[in-house]
């Protein structure tokens, strides 16, 4: 019996320590000169660390900018960063941590749709804004009135890309390669549906799992279907690998893909092989608009690299949240949600943001292409 005894005692001690910490935390009184806290949930370590760190950089930059111009409603903002490791369980635990902390007024994140969906019931129950910069799962924003996504769903983006491929570029036969996760499946599905609707033919569809590095087998198979162009539903890292290996196979053809391909990393990793790639963007780092110039210059100065689409979205998310708080005139969680829902034509770096009733953003897209190892606007030609 002494073992059971020891077990129970141990547990009690652990719980005691934890609750002690909680009590100590509770004693801090909220001061008026204390900042207003925003939570950021992002994969700082693990497979998606690259994207999570971009979130962190952008949100911190946005907060510094907001605070430099006097904060929101006379108070400074501060961010608490939580590392979800890209693990849905961690994301949900963090959601519980944020929602049970009365200092925190709203949350930005997470990166993947699965993480966002896992955390959703918690935000929904507690009543806190869950503003994801990147979740594009069609079930996400409509799942709760507290959930918002500013990336725009594939249902909005793919008709535009299909039109680009069919009408502007004149492709009739396209082969599709996509990553087998929620995002990739959605992207490929909306693209093929829309492309077929226009009268095009999909010659073959193949998918791969996250973490795959060798695409030669899939590419060889797709090549045999003899398409005019390749549609690549992949993030920029995989996109660069696929292009590299395609070039090694001696298969040269134009490539079309979603906005997630837009990143300097694609050019750096893909080299010559990514030329003749067509995609759309709602954020373009070489845009001459002064606010984008200011953001890009500052980002490069701080972190020594060019911001990509995901970074810009995270920046927009923070700025949008600050704007919603201003419009709400309050830091009340419920009021922030109402103001956010009412967002109309918010001028973001990645296009203006207007939410649908369900909480998805309607975006505008610009056609771009890679030429001479650089992203260029397509329509300027």
């Amino acid at each position, binding site marked *: 019996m002494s073992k059971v005894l020891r077990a129970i005692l141990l547990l009690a001690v652990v719980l005691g320590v934890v609750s002690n910490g909680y009590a100590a935390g509770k004693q801090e009184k909220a001061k008026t000169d204390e900042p207003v806290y925003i939570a950021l949930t992002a994969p700082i*370590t693990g497979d998606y660390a*690259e994207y999570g760190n971009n979130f962190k950089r952008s949100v911190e930059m946005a907060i510094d900018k907001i605070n430099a111009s006097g904060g929101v409603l006379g108070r400074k903002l501060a961010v608490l960063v939580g590392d979800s490791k890209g693990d849905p369980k961690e994301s949900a635990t963090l959601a519980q941590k944020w929602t049970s902390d009365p200092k925190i007024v709203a949350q930005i994140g997470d990166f993947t749709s699965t993480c966002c969906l896992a955390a959703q019931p918690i935000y929904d129950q507690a009543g806190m804004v869950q503003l994801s910069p990147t979740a594009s799962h069609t079930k996400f924003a409509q799942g709760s009135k507290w959930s918002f996504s500013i990336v725009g769903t594939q249902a909005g983006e793919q008709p535009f890309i299909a039109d680009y491929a069919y009408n502007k570029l004149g492709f009739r036969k396209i082969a599709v390669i996509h990553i087998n996760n929620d995002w990739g499946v959605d992207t490929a599905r909306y693209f093929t549906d829309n492309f077929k609707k226009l009268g095009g033919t999909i010659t073959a569809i193949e998918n791969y799992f996250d973490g795959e590095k060798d695409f030669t*087998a899939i590419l*060889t*198979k797709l090549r045999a279907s003899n398409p005019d162009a390749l549609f690549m539903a992949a993030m920029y890292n995989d996109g*660069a690998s696929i292009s*590299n290996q395609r070039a*090694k196979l001696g298969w040269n053809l134009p490539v079309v893909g979603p906005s997630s391909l837009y990143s300097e*990393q694609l050019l750096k990793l893909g080299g010559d092989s990514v030329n003749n790639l067509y995609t759309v963007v709602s954020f373009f780092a070489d845009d001459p608009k002064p606010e984008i110039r200011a953001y890009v210059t500052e980002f490069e100065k701080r972190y020594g690299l060019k911001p990509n689409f995901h970074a810009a979205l995270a920046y927009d998310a923070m700025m949008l949240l600050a704007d919603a708080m201003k419009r709400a005139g309050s830091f009340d969680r419920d009021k922030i949600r109402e103001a956010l829902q009412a967002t109309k034509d918010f001028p973001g770096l990645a296009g203006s943001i207007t939410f649908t009733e369900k909480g998805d953003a309607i975006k505008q897209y610009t056609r771009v292409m890679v030429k001479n190892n650089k992203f260029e606007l397509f329509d300027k030609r």
Partner: protein
Amino acid sequence: MIVQQLINGITQGSIFALLAISFAVIYGVLRLVNFATGATYMMGAFAGWLTVRYISQNIFLAMLAGLCTGWSIGFLIEKVAIKSLRGVARIASLICTIGFSIFMIEIATVIFGAETKAMPSFFNEKAFTLGGATVVWYQLFLIGTAVTILLLLQILIFKTKAGLAIRTVSLDFKTAGLMGINVDRTISLAFSLGGATAGIAGVLGSVYYNIVNPTMGNLQGLKSFSAAVFGGLTSIPGAILGGYLLAIVENFGVQIVSGGYRDIIGFVILVGFLLFRPRGLLGKKTSL
């Protein structure tokens, strides 16, 4: 197309084979699966990347860096974790290798950042076309290097005294000790050798795929483990055969079935072999 898939498979198989050897050398002497192999592969790749980026654009130098890094990591793991745990239940050493794997991946993320790095291509010109399939020089180089390393290892194991010690220890560790073989040193050597092959594989793989990042070894490690079991965990020629066969079967599996089922092929082979022929293709029955 069939020729192309075969060439794809053989190139990929060279990397699998090197990693499978890494598993086999260590499993052979210690009956221990080193789950840090994938992470060692990654560290080797980073060493190669650093060399190419800061020292010289020379693939041989990069491979040397990968070899040294892998060797040191293998040596270190053995010294820190395995030596003190020898004779303890295998689970302790196994958990230790998992700990090392996590540690290396995360420390690489902290040091180098999570962003994927570009590894330059070498010998990327077209060598020849065969039945509609393009072969670049690097593929030939990769296959050639892998085969050379495999031959060198064979010579080391079958023609040298150290190799004799490795073979003896893998037959029976206690008796080998009684016969005057320095078991400690032999196990340490096996670990270092395993690390070194994984390190070189990292450089070769990263040049082939042109990328380096902290998580690049995870799937690679797991798949080559299947390859090693496929060929027979205790046999080095078996591991080589397993590596090549697994990659070729995988590539044809994509061609015939679908890319979605690609990873399953390796594991179905793994489970199938365990159930029906647990010693693998070339494994010896007695040594298991």
